[in-house]
């Protein structure tokens, strides 16, 4: 598991501790899979942006739709 994935999992667990990452569909809508609202999502983006020192612009939210999309977006930002 890459460091980016470890970070993403950790931040998701902090926001949605009741959801098992192994049990979600990684290609489905991230917010629905983790039952997170727009404020949770904003907190997630805030935390990830701070950890990776990336701006995470709102215009890119569409590229963060699913767990896998978010992961490849973050990976791209960190390499």
């Amino acid at each position: 598991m890459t460091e980016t994935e470890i970070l993403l999992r950790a931040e998701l667990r902090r926001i949605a501790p009741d959801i098992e990452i192994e049990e979600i569909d990684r290609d489905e809508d991230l917010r629905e899979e983790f039952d997170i609202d727009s404020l949770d999502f904003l907190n997630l983006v805030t935390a990830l942006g701070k950890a990776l020192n990336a701006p995470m612009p709102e215009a890119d939210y569409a590229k963060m739709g699913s767990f896998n999309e978010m992961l490849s977006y973050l990976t791209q930002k960190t390499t």
Partner: protein
Amino acid sequence: MGQFLMPSLGADMEAGTLIEWLKEPGDAVASGDLLAVVETQKGAIEVEAFEEGTLEEYLIEIGKKVPVGTPMAMIRVEGEVEVKKVTEPEVPKQETAAPESAPTTPTPAPRPKGDRIRITPAALQLAQSKGIDPRTLGDIGTGPDGALTLADIEAATPSPASPTPVNPMDGMRAAIAAAMSRSKAEIPHYYLAHTVDLTAAQAFVDHTNANRAPDERLLLGALYLKAVAKALRKYSEFNGYFSDGSFQPASAINPGMAITIRGGGLVAPAILDAESLDLDAMMASIRDLAGRVRAGRFRATELSDATITVTSLGERGVDQLFGVIYPPQVAIIGVGTPRPQPFDVNGEVQSCLTTTLTLAADHRVSDGHRGALFLRAIDKHLQKPEKL
């Protein structure tokens, strides 16, 4: 000397469980300081002091469930002489041979050599009831002059049967059940719905957020709350409490924001004086409240201060919701999930981002006509987001 009491955190609350002290004996206490965390049916709530002085002594132990109004701690008010709570345990005057092993039956603690045990009466009582010899505890006293306090005895007790387990979710469900049953039994609700074009509001949010770091971004929720707060200034019959057979309008506009708790239940703590907050301050309040609610930490007054409730389904919900009024409030605004819909704009049908606002209001206090004007006023404010 003042007493710090188990507060009433709602009409349906009969008792609460002390789960944490936030101040220690000897600490200075100002009015409004958070003193303790209390578990109620509504979850863990931080409780404020209403007196100024010094926290003198804990009167109940952590884990203890006590009725509303029970003194939980003593607060020495400024200027008062410190009450010598530390008294010499009643012991025979003669030096007695101290029993080598801890007594199995409670016995008065004899004096150790040349030095008296400093222990509060309540702590002594607890120690005796637990069969603990306070002399065996050493210098662990945290009270005045190193006196042993209830908390010290509690801490020194070898893992007692843990306090009655509290299941907050059961309590939460019960609290919601009680409030909502009362609402539906007592309040003659009427319902209105109104579809609102969110194009301007969303464009404003997008524009504002474009160059902002994530922690400075706005959500539509901040705009909804501000628009409701502004509309309430004119439509004051939706802002206040119905009690003792009549409506008392509230002077402050404190919308309660319904916040879902993961695992079940919800609470709607108030955003105080929402009308005076600009959108950034509103957003900061929303983040703060939601964060604390999810961490299980919010203040007692934040629940009872709400003068109306606003509940939003967020971005992954459905079109509209018909709220149940939270008594003794008289109205609840629902905001459906925004979605693009064909909408008439100046005679032309366009695809617009829309949401459906709903109002459930108390017919004893207002009528549908005013309710409709109130919803339209919220709509009007949402069309001019830059003025919110």
